């Protein structure tokens, strides 16, 4: 029972980074880019499954040319090969067009499972992998924190966390899974891994290679578009309430009651 596993990886700014906006876009100069942390949990699970059962991990990332650096990180921790979907004609779309691009790529790769993140920490869409599953007519399980393949390798049992509940879900394979924090600790690349990554193949695919209709993707295919990006409205400066615990508590209760009128 060996598994061919595809991991959908997105390149995102490190969550700690400061986001600067200019002309309704994020200023990317100087931003530290990382693999989407939720997708990274999926990558870790894929690596573990292949270590245990054999098979292959293929990383697929759709993003601009300079995302190659981020793809190398996936190869450095153990992905066997990578596909970089890179073509300016595919950019500027929405979650629907991204899913279409990824689904077109997946049609060209044999796999038993696809792992992705439950949401990307940049756009927080939480919809691309589920759309991919539907486009490929595959089952999906969202927000997975435990995963066990069946002995025959044709099904899987998952525990998933959603809306404060934990469910056990079973599915046949192939299927799409999205990873939630808790699925496992991610590994860091070793020096050997980093060196080895340089020799691993990264294949570039463009719109033509995917055989995709340009009208269906990018700006032209998008159903929704960003009009404006703004910093969050500044919260009025907060009040630090002075005094010892008793005094501060008394004043806080008064303010919540009389000023904020929330209690």
């Amino acid at each position, binding site marked *: 029972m060996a598994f061919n596993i595809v991991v959908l990886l997105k390149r995102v700014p490190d969550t700690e980074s400061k*986001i600067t*906006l200019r002309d309704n876009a994020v200023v990317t100069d100087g931003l530290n880019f990382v693999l989407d942390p939720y997708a990274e949990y999926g990558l870790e699970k894929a690596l573990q499954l292949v270590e245990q059962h054999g098979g292959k991990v293929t990383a697929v990332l759709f993003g601009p040319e300079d995302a190659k650096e981020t793809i190398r990180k996936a190869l450095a921790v153990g992905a066997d090969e990578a596909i970089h979907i890179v073509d300016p004609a595919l950019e500027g779309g929405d979650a629907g067009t991204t899913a279409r691009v990824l689904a077109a790529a997946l049609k060209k790769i044999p796999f038993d499972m696809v792992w992705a993140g439950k*949401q990307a*920490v940049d756009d927080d869409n939480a919809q691309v992998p589920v759309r991919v599953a539907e486009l490929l007519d595959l089952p*999906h399980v969202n927000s997975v924190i435990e995963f066990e393949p069946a002995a025959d390798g044709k099904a899987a049992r998952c525990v998933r966390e959603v809306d404060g509940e*934990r*469910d056990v879900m079973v599915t046949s394979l192939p299927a799409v899974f999205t990873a939630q924090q808790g699925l496992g600790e991610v590994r860091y690349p070793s020096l050997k891994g980093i060196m080895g990554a340089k020799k691993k193949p990264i294949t570039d695919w463009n719109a033509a290679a995917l055989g995709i209709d340009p009208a269906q993707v990018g700006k032209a295919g998008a159903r*929704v578009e960003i009009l404006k990006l*703004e910093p969050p409205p500044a919260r009025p400066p907060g009040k630090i309430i002075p005094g010892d*615990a008793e005094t501060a508590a008394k004043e806080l209760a008064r303010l919540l009651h009389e000023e904020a009128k929330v209690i």
Partner: protein
Amino acid sequence: MSNNILIVAEGRAEGLKKVSFELVNTAQQLAAALGGAVEGVVIGSNVGAWAEALVKAGLAKVYVADDAGLGAFAPESFADALAQVIKLAQPAIVLFGATGWGKEVSARTAAKLDWGLVTDCIAAHVENGALVLTRPIYSGKAIAQVRAKSLPVMVSIRPNIVPPVEANNPAAPIEKVAVTLKEPRAKVVETVVKAKSKVDLGEANIVVSGGRGVKGPEGFAPVQELADTLGGALGASRAAVDAGWIDYTHQVGQTGKTVAPKLYIAAGISGAIQHLAGMSSSKVIVAINKDPDAPIFKIADYGVVGDLFQVLPALNGEIKKLG
């Protein structure tokens, strides 16, 4: 396609979630601008009680897809059922609650029908005839205005952003929809942890949360007491959940629940970006932390620098005095 707006109601064993009635409120505002009617849909198995609750919410019609195949959650079946209702109702906009369930079902249905979908919105309005949605991105570090280039489109709206409508209107007509379902390949076979807090975290008007600063499971006692006094829900940071002090069902943040109560009290929580992503749209934020430099103070409306084990009981006493 009509100009109508269809809201997708969501329930649990105890009944419909409050967000379902909040969606009606948002839908009414949009319908007024677009000149359409507001309709609702209930899907599930044995959902008669949910339908009865929804018909009084001031809707023009309630579609009910009640099918034994929609008992245990199966994403494929729910998307299938909903797509069939949508084909019948022909709405211009379909609204979901931005819950885990709503986000999952909307994404699968949107792909099936080839519609656009804007998730996790905190406002919706019509501008020059187009639907414009407001949503936080980058864990709340930026706010995007997203325009639907055309209709129809699906949208999910965060719970607690607008007040729910009252369900005391004359009953709307029910249209039963017989759906045809295939055997789903992925399905829930067991629920191991049920949401069990007295007040549902996602819907609570007041949330009192504890973090690593509570130092152990017993440390949640003063947090819980204050929540009880305020009739609020108990929340927690991931650090407290990971330490095993409190159940995951209480977790607030990117990997837990997104909350937007009118009052959020964070005690012993530093204010990491992933925690803020889950609570920064709360109306009033109170931080209690002994470190004056804790980042949580940057977004707090009121802050107390001090020991939570002294401040919380004192605050509890003062609030009780207010009666």
